[in-house]
């Protein structure tokens, strides 16, 4: 099977293969037929199309947020730097293929010998690329004496402080490495993570992983603002791909104490459990007061349209601010935080139920920033101490990763560091 066949073109082939599963010779013949007379490819919608893997920056940051996510954090188990580098190279090769809509390895799912386990797990065989992006990050714990990286740890990658009301579970926090897989088809994202995890056995071990459905941010002006599980539009004021000056100022690293991070970005992940049952018993007026926006339109209180600028200086008849002093959007606003902004890219999650009859639901908050300690930390300090919404929230997972710059053709994830 040639390099150029993507999974979609394998559709017909996979069908033929299924009828003769286990009979290698026949499957091979079917493959040849598919090459000579390729089935016409249905026009791929934008959601199906691949996102380029290579570039100045990693994909999956300003890429218009896809609808689904599978995020995984790893502990590195090998003590040999060469094995870590070898894995990053293997991962890069598999990521290049999978983001192009191909199998993790050439002929991976059914093209190998019948006596060996397939090199690709196969569940994405007849699915398009689905906008899959794979984004790698390095946690602070990687920069110890195991791999000689202690001197390369940027100041910006210092551990996050403990915030008031944090209830962090170590089994849902931290990690030496992370991979964020986003796609418009959940099976494509899960397939990518599953195959990368498989390549890593023995070198790395999964520390925790999180599935997300429903993006809670738009990262492009071409996207509408989605709603989080509180039912509110979330991320209206997000940084957008169409504003390169703001991205350069708030998202992409340049200068600083770690050259290897130039063109990269810092990723903060927070698993925020929402006590949605309690929230749902809260009056509409109170919900809107807590958020600071109208639930229907998303307009800031005191304004008309979603994208109207929030005016924190308007007072109501009672002389109190229309957007209360402890409203979520006020505390999180650039105006309250000395101009600090961030690129938010979170996802809703529901991980079944908690055994007490409540949904284990919430927001898997993800943001990309140039310096988490100047951007995320002040915001979270303000929110965790003053935001009334905190009564409905429980932060139970937290991690900070340094996402290196994009990979050039022929390079590999982290080649500026390792």
């Amino acid at each position: 099977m040639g390099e150029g066949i993507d999974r979609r073109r394998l559709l017909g082939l996979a069908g033929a293969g299924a009828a003769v599963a286990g009979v290698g010779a026949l499957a091979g013949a079917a493959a040849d037929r598919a090459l000579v007379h390729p089935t016409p490819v249905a026009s791929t919608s934008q959601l199906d199309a691949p996102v380029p893997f290579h570039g100045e920056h990693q994909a999956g940051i300003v890429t218009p947020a896809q609808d689904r996510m599978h995020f995984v954090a790893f502990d590195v188990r090998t003590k040999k730097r060469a094995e870590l580098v070898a894995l990053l190279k293997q991962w890069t090769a598999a990521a290049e293929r999978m983001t192009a809509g191909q199998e993790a390895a050439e002929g991976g799912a059914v093209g190998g010998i019948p006596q060996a386990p397939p090199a690709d797990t196969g569940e994405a065989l007849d699915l398009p690329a689905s906008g899959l992006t794979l984004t790698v990050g390095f946690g602070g714990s990687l920069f110890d004496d195991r791999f000689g990286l202690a001197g390369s740890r940027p100041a910006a990658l210092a551990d996050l402080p403990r915030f008031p009301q944090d209830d962090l579970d170590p089994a849902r926090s931290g990690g030496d490495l992370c991979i964020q897989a986003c796609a418009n088809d959940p099976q494509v994202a899960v397939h990518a993570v599953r195959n990368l995890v498989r390549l890593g056995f023995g070198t790395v071990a999964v520390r925790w992983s999180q599935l997300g459905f429903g993006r809670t941010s738009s990262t492009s002006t071409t996207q509408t603002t989605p709603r989080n599980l509180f039912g509110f539009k979330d991320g209206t004021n997000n940084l957008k791909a169409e504003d390169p000056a703001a991205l350069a100022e708030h998202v992409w690293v340049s200068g600083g104490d770690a050259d290897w991070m130039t063109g990269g970005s810092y990723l903060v992940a927070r698993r925020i459990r929402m006590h949605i049952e309690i929230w749902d018993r809260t009056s509409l007026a109170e919900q809107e007061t807590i958020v600071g926006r109208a639930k229907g339109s998303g307009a800031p209180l005191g304004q008309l349209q979603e994208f109207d600028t929030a005016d924190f200086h308007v007072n109501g008849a009672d002389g109190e601010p229309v957007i209360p002093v402890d409203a979520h959007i006020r505390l999180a606003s650039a105006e309250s935080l000395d101009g600090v902004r961030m690129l938010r890219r979170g996802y809703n999650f529901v991980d079944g139920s908690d055994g007490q009859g409540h949904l284990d639901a919430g927001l898997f908050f993800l943001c990309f920033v140039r310096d988490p300690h100047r951007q995320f930390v002040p915001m979270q300090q303000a929110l965790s101490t003053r935001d009334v919404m905190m009564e409905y929230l429980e932060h139970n997972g937290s991690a900070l990763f340094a996402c290196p710059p994009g990979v050039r053709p022929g390079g590999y994830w982290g080649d500026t560091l390792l």
Partner: protein
Amino acid sequence: MLKLRTAAAIAVPIALVVACSQDKADTPDSGGGPIAVQASDTECAVARTDADAGTITFEVSNKGTKVTEFYLYAEGDRILGEVENIGPGLTRRLIVEVADGGKYTTACKPGMKGDGIRGDFAVNGSAGAAKDADAKLAEATTSYQRYVNSQADALITKTTEFVDAVKAEKVDEAKALFPIARIYWERIEPVAESFGDIDPKIDGREEVIEEGMEFTGFHRLERDLWQDGLQADSSAIADRLLADVTELVGMAKSVELNPLQLANGAKELLDEVATGKITGEEDRYSHTDLYDFRSNVDGSQAAIAALRPVLEERDAALVSTLDERFAAVDTLLETYRSGDGFKLYTELTPDDIKGLAEAVDALGEPLSKVAGVVAG
């Protein structure tokens, strides 16, 4: 014991696919294509009674009134492939890989019982010279067979001691011997599993015993010893265990293994660890799972050791990875030693279990590649 595996599941060279055939695109003929079989209540008409070695396809049409099935047997009624439940009017397909030329037998079984209506079937030539070509592979199987024999002897000895203790109602002694006797069982379990029915009799857990089957064997006695106390029939169960083990050992010593079975056996032993021992499901009353864990890894190592000369020649990097990962598992298991044996599963912390699971995953991946190297 993980699940009931039939003989066919481990006999890798016989790739077998049964498919319901609806389309008539490739009509069976008497040429090189699928071989038509017209089955009725009294006849089994096979359109061609010979074929070249390799992939042979039968298309079995049931023209009778009874549900039927179709078999291809090698000598001694060893099943190479079967297609069951062919209802009246239905056509089903049986694809069988037959590697070696020789005499075979076809059979239709109207009503799905009895010896069926039989016919001779000849296979010409040989699909691959792989079988005897490589002397190193032959030596691998001989070497592993010696290992199986030695473990089988010890299995009889230790099972006898265990059974005697149960029958003498020496509960403490029996409890001490339980994990010891199982060492030899767990080391060669994939071989035992290849004999189908006897594995669940010896090692079946309560929940995997099928309807109509009695709960016997090691785990029944484990329940008696640790939970229920010895029962009126414990002594009889002990006798049956020894009889079943003796029968199994007889078969294990005479079975002909091929290199792929060694490779798959090595992997399956790790699968057993990953799904049964790491979870504490195997020895739920005695909690002696780490003994079984150790023994599964021993058995896996033995199979890889037998294949080693071949593997070194074909994929030296894989061998060094396997060495490292086996060593990591060994080192980790040693930390759970307690006296002559191991800590109980209930003494392990969640972190301990996670560490063991990681080590098994790390070993399981490269082990799964061995079969491909042996076959390739």
